[in-house]
C-alpha cells in the first residue's frame, strides 16, 4: 500500500524538480504559505471558519473525481482502494481540520473531519451527477467549464454576501467581490489542448481579443451582480466597489494573456511568480500586460497564420 504513496511523492518530486526547486523546500514553502493564508483569512473575516470549510470541501472533493477513482479502482482490490482514499483525504484535509481546532472553531472542525472521511467513501459519485446548467452555453468553453467546476464556491459567495449585509460589514462584501474575480482566474490558468486553439480560423490578434471578449462577458455575469447588490446597500462605497471591479477585470485580462504566453505548456515557476506578484501588486500589470501580450502572440504563431 505504501508504494502508491511513494509514487505520489515521486510524481510531486519530479514535477517540482522540473521547476528548479528542491522537493523538501517546496513542501516547506507550501506549509508556510498555508499558515500565512490561514492567518490572514481568520484575521480579516468574521466567518472565516465557514470559508475554511468550503476550502476543505473543495480540496478533498478534487480527489473524489470520477476518472481518477475509476483508475484507482481498476488498479487495486476493493479494501486497498478504500484505504488509499481515506489516507489521501486525511493527508489533504487534516491541515484544515487542525487549523480549525487551533482557532477554536470546534464545531467546524468536527464537520470538517466528518466531511474529510465521508467524501473518501463517495468514490466519485458526487461528481457523476447530471449536467449542471450553465449560463454560458453560447460561448464555450472556459466560462462553462469554470462555472461548473466552481459553482459550489459561488453559492458560498452569495451566502457570504447575504451575511455581510445582515451584519452590516461592507469589508466582508468587498472581500467576497474580490473572491469572485479571484475564482475566475482559475478558469484561465490551465492551457487547453492545442487542437482547441488550432481549430480557430482567426489571426493571433483576433484570437486573443475573442478570448478577452468572452472572459469579460463571463466576469460580468458572475461578478457584477455582487457589485450591483453591494452598491444598492452601500452607495457611499461606490468608488471602492468600482475600483475592485476594475482591478478584477484587469486580473482576468492578464490571466488570459498569461495562459497563452506559455502555451501549450503550463506557466513555469517564474511566470507563476510574476503572475502572483502582479495580482497582489496590481500596478505591475501595466508593465507586464504588454510584455505577456507580445509573448502570447509569439507562442500562438505556430497555430495561427
Amino acid at each position: 500500500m505504501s508504494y502508491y504513496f511513494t509514487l505520489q511523492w515521486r510524481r510531486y518530486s519530479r514535477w517540482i524538480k522540473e521547476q528548479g526547486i528542491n522537493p523538501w523546500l517546496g513542501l516547506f514553502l507550501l506549509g508556510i504559505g498555508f499558515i500565512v493564508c490561514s492567518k490572514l483569512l481568520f484575521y480579516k473575516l468574521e466567518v472565516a471558519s465557514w470559508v475554511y470549510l468550503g476550502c476543505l470541501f473543495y480540496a478533498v472533493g478534487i480527489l473524489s473525481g470520477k476518472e481518477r477513482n475509476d483508475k484507482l479502482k481498476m488498479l487495486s482490490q476493493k479494501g486497498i482502494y478504500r484505504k488509499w482514499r481515506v489516507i489521501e483525504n486525511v493527508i489533504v484535509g487534516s491541515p484544515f481540520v487542525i487549523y480549525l481546532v487551533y482557532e477554536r472553531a470546534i464545531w467546524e472542525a468536527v464537520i470538517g473531519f466528518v466531511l474529510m472521511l465521508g467524501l473518501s467513501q463517495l468514490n466519485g459519485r458526487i461528481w457523476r451527477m447530471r449536467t449542471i446548467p450553465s449560463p454560458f452555453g453560447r460561448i464555450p468553453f472556459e466560462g462553462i467549464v469554470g462555472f461548473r467546476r466552481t459553482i459550489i464556491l459561488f453559492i458560498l459567495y452569495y451566502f457570504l454576501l447575504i451575511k455581510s449585509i445582515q451584519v452590516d460589514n461592507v469589508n466582508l462584501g468587498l472581500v467576497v467581490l474580490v473572491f469572485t474575480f479571484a475564482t475566475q482566474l482559475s478558469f484561465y490558468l490551465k492551457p487547453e489542448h492545442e487542437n482547441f486553439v488550432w481549430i480557430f480560423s482567426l489571426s493571433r490578434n483576433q484570437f486573443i481579443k475573442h478570448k478577452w471578449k468572452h472572459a469579460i462577458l463571463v466576469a460580468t455575469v458572475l461578478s457584477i451582480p455582487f457589485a450591483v447588490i453591494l452598491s444598492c446597500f452601500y452607495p457611499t462605497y461606490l468608488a471602492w466597489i468600482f475600483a475592485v471591479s476594475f482591478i478584477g477585470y484587469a486580473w482576468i485580462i492578464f490571466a488570459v494573456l498569461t495562459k497563452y504566453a506559455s502555451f501549450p505548456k503550463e506557466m513555469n515557476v517564474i511566470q507563476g511568480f510574476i503572475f502572483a506578484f502582479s495580482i497582489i501588486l496590481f500596478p505591475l500589470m501595466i508593465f507586464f500586460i504588454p510584455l505577456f501580450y507580445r509573448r502570447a502572440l509569439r507562442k500562438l504563431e505556430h497555430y495561427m497564420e
Partner: protein
Amino acid sequence: MISIRNLHKSYGNLQVLNDINIEFKSGKVYGIVGENGAGKTTLFKCIAGLEIFKGKIETSHNPLKDVLGFLPTQPIFMSYLTGKEYLKLSCIARDNHRNDFVEQNIFNLPLDSYAVHYSTGMQKKLAFMAILMQQNEVFILDEPYNGVDIHSNMMMTAIIKKLKSEGKIVLISSHIFSTLKETCDELIVLEKGKGIKHFYPKDYEHVEQEMKNKSIEDVIERLKI
C-alpha cells in the same frame, strides 16, 4: 488540391518521414496505410500545420487549416463540457454560428451529457460530427472506425462517399483494410522513414494478400506457441 513536396520530418535522430511527395486531388478519397510508427499520424499533423517540417505543402485553400477537419485517433475532450457545447465550440471556432445540433445528431448521441463520460465510440462519433458541421473542404480521419459499432461504421463509410461526391478531399488511415477497399481511390503505403508506394483499386487484392503474408505469418512464427 494539396501538393506535398520533399517533405522530411524527424524527431532527433529518428527519421519518420523521408522525402514524401504526394498530390491530393478534390473529389478523391485517399487511404494512408503503414505499420504502427510508420508516420501516418505525423504526416497528418504536418498537413494540419501541427508539426514543424522540412519541405513544402502547397494548396489552393489558404490557409489550409481553416478548411481542414482533423479527426484524431483519440479525440480530446474537456471535462464539464457537454456534447452539444463541444459541437458549438467547434463551429464557433470556424465562425459558423449554426444551432441545428439536434437535427444533425445522426448518431443519436446524448448531446446534453458530458462528452468525457461518453464511450470511446461515442466520442469518435461526436468528434466526427463536429468536423462535418464545420463544413470543411478537406478531411483527415485518423483511424475513424476504431471503437465504433458496425451500424455507425456503415454510416461513416456512406458519409465519406458523400463527401467525395461533393468534391471534398478525404484522407483516411485505418487498419481495417475492407473499409479502405470500399472507399479509397488510392492507397498510399508509408514505409518507416523510407518513403511511400502508391496503389490503385486494381492492386488492392494483391496489397491485402501481401500484408497478410508479411505481417501475420512472420509474427506467428516468431511467437513459437
